[in-house]
């Protein structure tokens, strides 16, 4: 088996999963930011209704 051939296959698999992983991390971060933003806006609306 050609070592270079194997190395490039490894790079291919690594790249594929890295791209998906980066997207999953960006989704998780966006989800956390949106949850916080939604809570803040709900709180703001609730405090506005009280006053």
């Amino acid at each position, binding site marked *: 088996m050609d070592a270079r051939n194997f190395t490039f296959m490894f790079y*291919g698999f690594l790249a594929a999963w890295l791209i998906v992983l980066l997207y999953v991390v960006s989704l998780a971060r966006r989800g956390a930011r949106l949850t916080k933003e939604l809570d803040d806006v709900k709180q703001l*609306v609730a405090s506005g209704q009280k006053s």
Partner: protein
Amino acid sequence: MREKLVIVLAGLAAVLLAYNLHHMFLVLPNEVSQDFIFRIIFFHVPAGIVGMIGFFVALIFSVWYLAGGDLRYDSVAASIVEVSVVFSIVNLVTGSIWARVIWGIWWTWDYRLTSQLVCVLIFVGYVMMRRAIDEPTQRARLSAALTIFGCFDSVVVWKSIEWFRNNHPGPVLSIRTGGGNMDPDYERTLWLNFLALLIIGAALALVRSRQESMEREIDSLRRAAHV
């Protein structure tokens, strides 16, 4: 409900991927002319197909939006497009790595590669455009128009290996050739990995569409607070 579905899909994809990886590396023999690098096809082709299917599903939702004006359809389309862009980028990158070994170059401007790059750029533009426009109706209408335009290019990507002479290999899957161009064991593994990537894509699109709903909720709360 949606969270449970995402967990079930992720679990299913993990089991399928474990089986596929075992099969790819420990069961299937090396391909005669390409040796080990051939295995990139098990991610390259399924990622491309998942991306392309996603763009066409997004097209259906975009047309539904244009027909009825319901912004929920636009949100679903946007979620699917974003996930499809990720899989299309995986397709381009893995293809480029394969090309470096087999062709000796990272990239060539042939019809297949160029049309796929254009397709990715159109939909990256779609994602960027959505972030730049705040007005939901205008954003949805332009997004739908761009999806229709992008899907025309997707057809070119799909058919380019039949229409033009390319460096890119011709069709090998039996759905296009009627069989005989690829070992059935290889093809079975490829379709199983397609299924795994499709499930991952569906799970990611569900998560993304939940975020789109949250964005809509934030938007409507803000508007209500200002009235």
